[in-house]
C-alpha cells in the first residue's frame, strides 16, 4: 500500500536519495595541490605522481608492523624471522601485489646501489639486509577441478620469473588429496578417509574405492559430492588456503601474503558471514597459523597477511594500467555464478559504485569484532578456530524430530561433524532448494584431515584402531580380507548348488 509520507521513487524523482558528486571540492590533487587529478579514490582526487607513493605507503603501513617477530626485542629495523611466500592466482590483485612487493622490498641492482649511497651504516649493516632471506611465489593450478579449463602454470611462471630473485613454486589443487605432496610438506601419508555427505552426521570410513586412487579423481569426487553451487568455490578457497599455508610452513616462511584487496576483502567478509563463518571473521583479514603435522611439538608460525586490504579494486586496476602489468586472468568456475560468493560480489561491487565508502566500512566494522565464546581446538578441515557448542546451537534452534525429549542414542560410528566448524558443516551438508546434480558417492577428505582427527581424539591410542573397532561393531564398511577355504566356501553356497 502506498504511503502518503514516503516518496515513491518511480513516480517522484525528488524521492530518490541524491547521488553525491564524484569528488569533493576541486579537480586538483589533494596531495600536491598542483597537478590536475587523474583518479578519484572515495571522493578524494589524486594525480598519477602522488598515487604511486600513496599505494606503496598503504602497503608498508599494512605490512610492516607485522614483519618483526615480537621476540626480537627492540630492533628498530625490519627483519623477518623466516622466508616469504606470496600466493599468486594470476588475477589482477595478485599481479599488483607481486609488483608492489618487488618494488618496495626487492629493488633492482641499480636502484639498490643508488639507495646504498644514502644508507646509514653501509650495505653490510644488518639494517640494510633483505627483510626475508628467500622469497617464493606460489601458484595453485585449479584446472583439474573442472573439465575444459586451461592450465595456466607456464603463463604464471613467466610472470613470476620476471621478478628477480623470486622463486616460482607450482602446486595443483589435487595436491590436497595427494600423499606425495603431503610427505613433501612434512606430513605422514595415510590411507585416506571418506565421508558420507548424505547424512548430517558425516560418518567417516576409510577410503577403499580403488577408482579414487588418483588425486584428481579424489578432488573431483570431493567437489561433485558438495550439495550447492555455493559450496564449490568455498571449498576450493579453503583448499588453496591450506595448500599455501602448509607450503609456507615447509619452506620455513614466516609470512604468507595474499592479494585480497579492500573490495575482495569486503566480499569475502560478507560472504563468510552469510555462510555462517561469523566466529572466524577476524581470520578473513589476517591470521596466525601453525600446524604440528610432524607431531614433534614444534612448528613454525606463519602469519597470513593481506597487504592490499586498504586498497580498492579501482586503485589496483589503475596501478596495473599505469605500470603496464600483464594480468593473465583466471577462468570462472562453472556454476559458481549462482553461489553466495558470486551473489555477494555482484552486490558489493554494485553498492561500491553508488556508495563508495561501503567497502571500507564493512572492513573496518569487521575489524572491530571478536569471537564471543571461547574456541575448542580447530576445525579439522579448514584449520580455523572451532566454536564451542555449534551442534547444540543447531539442535536448540530447530526441532528435527518429534521425539526431541528423548534423543536417539548416539551412533558409535565416528562422525566428522563434531570436529568441523559451523561453516564447514554448512558447506558439506546445507542443500539447495533446487535439485542439483550432485553425486551421492563418498566424499574423500583432504590429506590433513586424518592426522588432525588423531589429535582431536586424544583418549584413543590410535584413531585407526578405534575407528575400525567402532565400525565393526556398527556393522560398518571396513572389510576384513582373509583367505576362505574351499569347504567354507561350499557351505556358503550350498543352498544354491544342485546335487551332483
Amino acid at each position: 500500500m502506498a504511503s502518503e509520507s514516503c516518496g515513491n521513487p518511480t513516480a517522484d524523482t525528488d524521492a530518490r536519495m541524491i547521488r553525491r558528486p564524484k569528488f569533493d571540492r576541486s579537480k586538483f590533487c589533494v596531495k600536491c595541490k598542483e597537478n590536475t587529478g587523474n583518479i578519484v579514490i572515495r571522493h578524494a582526487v589524486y594525480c598519477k605522481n602522488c598515487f604511486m607513493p600513496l599505494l606503496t605507503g598503504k602497503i608498508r603501513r599494512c605490512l610492516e608492523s607485522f614483519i618483526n617477530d615480537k621476540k626480537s626485542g627492540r630492533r628498530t629495523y625490519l627483519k623477518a624471522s623466516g622466508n616469504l611466500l606470496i600466493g599468486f592466482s594470476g588475477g589482477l590483485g595478485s599481479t599488483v601485489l607481486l609488483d608492489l612487493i618487488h618494488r618496495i622490498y626487492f629493488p633492482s641492482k641499480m636502484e639498490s646501489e643508488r639507495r646504498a649511497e644514502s644508507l646509514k651504516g653501509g650495505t653490510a649493516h644488518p639494517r640494510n639486509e633483505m627483510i626475508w632471506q628467500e622469497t617464493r611465489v606460489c601458484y595453485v593450478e585449479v584446472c583439474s577441478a573442472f573439465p575444459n579449463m586451461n592450465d595456466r602454470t607456464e603463463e604464471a611462471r613467466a610472470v613470476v620469473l620476471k621478478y628477480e630473485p623470486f622463486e616460482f613454486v607450482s602446486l595443483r589443487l589435487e595436491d590436497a588429496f595427494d600423499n606425495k605432496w603431503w610427505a613433501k610438506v612434512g606430513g605422514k601419508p595415510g590411507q585416506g578417509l571418506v565421508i558420507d555427505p548424505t547424512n548430517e552426521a558425516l560418518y567417516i570410513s576409510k577410503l577403499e574405492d580403488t577408482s579414487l586412487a588418483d588425486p584428481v579423481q579424489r578432488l573431483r569426487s570431493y567437489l561433485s559430492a558438495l550439495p550447492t553451487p555455493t559450496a564449490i568455490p568455498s571449498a576450493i578457497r579453503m583448499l588453496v588456503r591450506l595448500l599455501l599455508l602448509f607450503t609456507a610452513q615447509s619452506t620455513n616462511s614466516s609470512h604468507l601474503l595474499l592479494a585480497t584487496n579492500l573490495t575482495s576483502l569486503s566480499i569475502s567478509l560478507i560472504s563468510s558471514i552469510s555462510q555462517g563463518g561469523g566466529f572466524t571473521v577476524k581470520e578473513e583479514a589476517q591470521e596466525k597459523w601453525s600446524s604440528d603435522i610432524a607431531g614433534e611439538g614444534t612448528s613454525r608460525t606463519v602469519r597470513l597477511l593481506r597487504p592490499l586490504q586498504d586498497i580498492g579494486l579501482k586503485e589496483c586496476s589503475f596501478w596495473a594500467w599505469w605500470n603496464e602489468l600483464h594480468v593473465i586472468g583466471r577462468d570462472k568456475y562453472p556454476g559458481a555464478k549462482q553461489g553466495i560468493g558470486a551473489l555477494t560480489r555482484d552486490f558489493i561491487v554494485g553498492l561500491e559504485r553508488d556508495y563508495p565508502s561501503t567497502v571500507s566500512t564493512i572492513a573496518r566494522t569487521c575489524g572491530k569484532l571478536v569471537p564471543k565464546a571461547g574456541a575448542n581446538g580447530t576445525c579439522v578441515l579448514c584449520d580455523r578456530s572451532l566454536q564451542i557448542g555449534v551442534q547444540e546451537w543447531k539442535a536448540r534452534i530447530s526441532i528435527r524430530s518429534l521425539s526431541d525429549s528423548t534423543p536417539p542414542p548416539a551412533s558409535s560410528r565416528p562422525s566428522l561433524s563434531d570436529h568441523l566448524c559451523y561453516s564447514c558443516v554448512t558447506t558439506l551438508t546445507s542443500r539447495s532448494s533446487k535439485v542439483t546434480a550432485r553425486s551421492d558417492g563418498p566424499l574423500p577428505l583432504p590429506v590433513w584431515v586424518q592426522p588432525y582427527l588423531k589429535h582431536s581424539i586424544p583418549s584413543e591410542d590410535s584413531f585407526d584402531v578405534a575407528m575400525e573397532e567402532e565400525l565393526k561393531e556398527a556393522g560398518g564398511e571396513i572389510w576384513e580380507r582373509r583367505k576362505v577355504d574351499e569347504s567354507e566356501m561350499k557351505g556358503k553356497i550350498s543352498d544354491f548348488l544342485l546335487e551332483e
Partner: protein
Amino acid sequence: MAPRSCVLCEKSKAILKRPKTGQQICKECFFYVFETEVHNTITQSKLFSPGDRVAIGASGGKDSTVLAYVLKTLNERYKYGLNLFLLSIDEGITGYRDDSLETVKRNQQQYDMPLKILSYDELYGWTMDAIVSQVGRKNNCTFCGVFRRQALDRGAAMLNVDHIVTGHNADDIAETVLMNIMRGDIARLGRCTYAYFKKLDYFSTECIYSPDAYRGHARTFLKDLEAARPSAIIDIIHSGEAFEVSEEVKSTQKAQQTCKRCGYMSSNDLCKACTLLEGLERGMASSGITDRARKKMEAEGPAPDNLRTIPFFRLPSGQPAVAIESPS
C-alpha cells in the same frame, strides 16, 4: 513424482520444506515445530517469569499477529502465568495505518487482550503527515524511526509492563546483522543478538515506498542468498551470535546517559527525539539531521522556554499510568 510424506510424523503428506533444516513436513507438524521452537526460545533463554506483564508490539501485520496468537496459545498451554497486552503505535499517516489499526482492534477481540494505542500526536504533538508537510519526503524516515522506538518504550512504561515483544522474524534479524555491518553501526551490532532473544530492536519494515534504498538493496540481496541456499538466513544469524564488538572498541563508545529534557536514555545531553522535536517546533527540522543545520539553530540561541516537549520518561513501576482499552 509421488507426494512425499512428512519426515517428522511419516504419515501425512508434506506440504512445505523448512529452509532451516531442509526437511519436508506436513501442516500439523509445522504448527508443532513452530510453536515448540518459540516455546524453547522462551524457556531456554528464561525470557519471562510467572506474573510478568508483557506488551506485544502489534502493527496489524502478519508477524505481530502470529506473535500475539502464538504467545497467547503458549501462555495457556504451558501456564507461563503472563499478563499479555497489545501495544500499537499510530504514526498518524492518513490512509496507511487506519486499516492495520482495525486489524489490531480485531486481534484485541479475538485474543481477548487489552489494547493500548499510542499516537505520535498524543506523545509528540505531531503526526507523520504534519512532519512530512514540514520536512518533505526525503528525511522523514529519520523522524518516524526515532519516534517509533521511543513511543514503544513509553507505551510500555504507561502499561507498566516488564517486557515488550515484537514480531521480528529470522529474516529481519539477518537483515539487521548485514545492515549494521555495512553501515558500521557498532552500537547496534552489539544489541542484535539481544534483540533476537528479547525482540527489542525496532525498525519499520512496512513502509514500502521508503526511500531507504540501502535497506532495499540489502533485502533483495538477502532474498537472493536465501534462494541460493535456504539456510543462509539462519547461517547469518549464527554469525551474528558468534561475534561481538571488542572490549577495546566498546571502551571508546559514548556512555549511555539520560536526556536532560525528557529523561529517556540518550548518548548525548538531549535524546534524538528531543533534538528532532525541537527542530520541528522551531521550524528548523533539518537541525536534527545535518551538522550545518544544527549549528545554525544553535547560533539562534537556546530553546525558548515555552517549547513543547515530550513528557518526562519514567521507568515502569507501580500501577499502569494510562487507561487501557479492555476487550468488551
